[in-house]
């Protein structure tokens, strides 16, 4: 393993010169995956393959290859054996008992970390958990704590019932997050807790009531280190909700907002990524956090990250945080307008940068953010309309996949309409924007939405068609809509199951393509 002890190597892939063939096979296996495997990849839990103390040299080449080629039943048999060994080591007394325990733990840990499909179930059935809990007792040597926490981490990375098996261990894991623990031990415990929190709301609540949040939060105060990163990730899993109480608890931790802002501003991208996810959840779940962060100038920091980074991992949560702030807080909207010239331009520009990206998620969520800005004041709409985002949006409406198209539709429509004052008023059309957008060629895209099976998209399409029919000068709207097969698309709803759409389409056809349509020309 490439190991020079620095923190950033901790996540290095398992490399070895001998291992290329095995590596290839591993890759092939990984890609042609079974459904279960796929699900495990997108679960919020992370297997620990390299230890938090920089990896063991002893673990190098030899063990790796053998593990990878093992058949599952053999692996399971070895696991059972390892648990038996551990049991005897835990029960024995006298000289050398510490070493025995560590050796047994290490063996189990290897079985649980190196293989493609860790034999978690076998370990559980053999009774590993109570033994591992015992090995976490206070006063145990660091190595023992570390190996035990590592085993628990990987057990928790499995299926839901496997994660739940960690319940007896939780109080001890939380305890070892304390400031007196050595950094690698605390980090490994944080990792295990992160996996447990990632499982679901029920387990999150258990952790919260056991007081896991404050010590975890304190672990992100240092400026750097892998501990900060792991703790931030675990924290983001802990507060993700959908209940807001964890987020509310976090923001009450003294100094946490400062730490978050500090990391977003200066820290390397890996840590900033996990911190950004914390911001995502805070901005979605806690009003207090939202206003504190805004007051601390988070918008500018987010914009800078968006402008300067190319890491998709970082961009996703940063963009989403920005989106949350814009969607939730009118103050944020004001900041966009009122903030110095730089901030204004920059927010729209970085969003345009995201629209230009090849990554689908960025395009979609950037369009979402723009749609919320476009739902603001006339000044906001003018800002977007005169920016470099416009040609991008028009192009995306015709060419992009459906989910992006829908968001872009929201932007374009919002640009053309003033927000209604009272509930009954018919919102006024901003003709200048409507004309320019329609002449940019967007009508086809909207009519395509009308044909889509998605009810919401079809509704959007019909609403935009109404704008065109009502708002284009000189009654050109009807011709334009007809020219793009709009009538045909609307007729699809004559027998559609959805009554609202049926009525909408019919009323448009009735009003604008009635009997006198086209007669006097």
């Amino acid at each position: 393993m490439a190991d020079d002890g620095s923190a950033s190597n901790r996540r290095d892939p398992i490399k070895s010169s001998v291992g290329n063939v095995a590596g290839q096979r591993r890759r092939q296996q990984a890609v042609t995956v079974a459904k279960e495997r796929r699900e495990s990849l997108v679960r919020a839990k992370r297997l620990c393959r390299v230890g938090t103390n920089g990896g063991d040299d002893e673990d190098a080449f030899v063990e790796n290859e053998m593990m990878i080629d093992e058949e599952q039943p053999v692996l399971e048999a070895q696991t059972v054996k390892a648990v038996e060994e551990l049991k005897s080591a835990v029960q024995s007394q006298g000289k050398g008992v510490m070493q025995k325990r560590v050796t047994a733990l290490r063996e189990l840990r290897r079985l649980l970390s190196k293989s493609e499909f860790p034999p978690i179930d076998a370990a559980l059935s053999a009774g590993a958990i109570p033994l591992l809990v015992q090995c976490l007792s206070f006063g145990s040597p660091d190595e023992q704590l570390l190996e035990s926490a590592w085993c628990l981490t990987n057990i928790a990375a499995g299926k839901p019932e496997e994660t739940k098996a960690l319940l007896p261990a939780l109080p001890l894991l939380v305890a070892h997050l304390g400031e007196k623990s050595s950094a690698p031990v605390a980090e490994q415990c944080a990792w295990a807790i992160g996996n447990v929190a990632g499982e679901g709301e029920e387990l999150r609540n258990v952790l919260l009531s056991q007081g896991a949040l404050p010590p975890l939060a304190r672990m992100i105060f240092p400026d750097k280190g892998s501990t900060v990163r792991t703790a931030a990730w675990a924290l983001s899993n802990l507060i993700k909700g959908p209940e807001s109480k964890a987020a509310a608890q976090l923001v009450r931790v003294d100094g946490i907002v400062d730490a978050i802002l500090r990391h977003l501003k200066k820290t390397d991208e890996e840590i900033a990524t996990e911190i950004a996810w914390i911001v995502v959840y805070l901005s979605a779940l806690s009003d207090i956090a939202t206003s504190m962060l805004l007051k601390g100038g988070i918008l500018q920091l987010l914009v800078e990250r968006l402008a300067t980074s190319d890491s998709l991992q970082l961009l996703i949560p940063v963009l989403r945080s920005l989106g949350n702030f814009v969607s939730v807080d009118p103050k944020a909207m004001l900041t966009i307008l009122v903030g110095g010239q730089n901030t204004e331009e920059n927010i729209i520009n970085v969003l345009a940068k995201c629209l230009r990206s090849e990554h689908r998620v960025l395009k979609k969520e950037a369009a979402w953010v723009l749609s919320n800005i476009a739902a603001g004041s006339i000044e906001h709409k003018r800002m977007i309309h005169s920016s470099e985002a416009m040609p991008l949006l028009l192009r995306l409406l015709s060419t992009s996949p459906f989910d992006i198209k829908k968001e872009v539709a929201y932007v374009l429509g919002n640009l053309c309409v003033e927000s209604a004052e009272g509930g009954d008023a018919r919102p006024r059309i901003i003709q200048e924007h409507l004309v320019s957008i329609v002449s940019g060629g967007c009508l086809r895209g909207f009519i395509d939405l009308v044909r889509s099976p998605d009810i919401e998209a079809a509704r959007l399409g019909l609403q935009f068609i109404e704008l065109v029919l009502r708002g284009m000068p000189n009654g050109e709207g009807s011709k334009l809509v007809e020219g793009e097969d709009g009538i045909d698309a609307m007729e699809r709803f004559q027998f559609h199951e959805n009554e609202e759409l049926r009525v909408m389409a019919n009323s448009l056809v009735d009003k604008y393509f009635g009997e006198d349509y086209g007669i006097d020309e």
Partner: protein
Amino acid sequence: MAMGMAVGELGFPYWNPLRRRFPPDSPFFASGNVERELLAKQVALDFTEDEITNLQTIVETESRRISCPIVGCPERLKSLDNFEDHYKTRHTASCSVCSRVYPTSRLLSIHISEAHDSFFQAKVARGYDMYECLVEGCGLKFKSYKARHRHLIDKHKFPTTFEFFKRTQLSKKRREKLQRQRVPKLKHEEDKEEASSDAMEVEDKASLDGLVSALSTLTTSDTTPSNVSFGRRHGRGLTFVPRSVHREKPTNSSSTPGSKT
């Protein structure tokens, strides 16, 4: 969800810009969340960028299928193209007699009854309420085609130009001609319909023959393009207008049936 309830005289929900907010576990954010985890495990498992994209696509396409919007249909399709195919095969029905295509089997069967079924016409002639409302769940039936049409417009807000109006293909002259023809003819037919429903008490051979002859004029297409096409492209589609409503034809004669086209 997003659009405010700005409803005007049309009853139309106008576009109203509103900010849209999503909770963190909303499906809206699902693909970003998937991406997060795949990228995080990329390092540990030594995936390449391509493999990640591959996995991402597999996960996305499986989880984000399109549910068919037709009520009662459980299908979930992989792509828009698949949806179009599914829609065509499952939710459209075509008439074996005249090849017209309809979006539901119910509508198809209504068409068959009204256009190709002599017993239907026999009952109409006797004054039964045979013309079903086209909107599923309504249940009302009417004595005449016209009455049902009125109901569709009044009760279900169908466009008034439904079925009478021909767009795009006709020239201005043709349209004017049709408009002029339409008015007197309809009145004529309407009178006849009502008269026949009043008069018909006893079934006799002559009138049955007449019905048969009237029936034969209902089938297939004629050279005049006359109606709005629904859903499926030009020319094919829902034509609920029985020919007898448009043509000037003596329905009660027992002479040879008119030209069957």
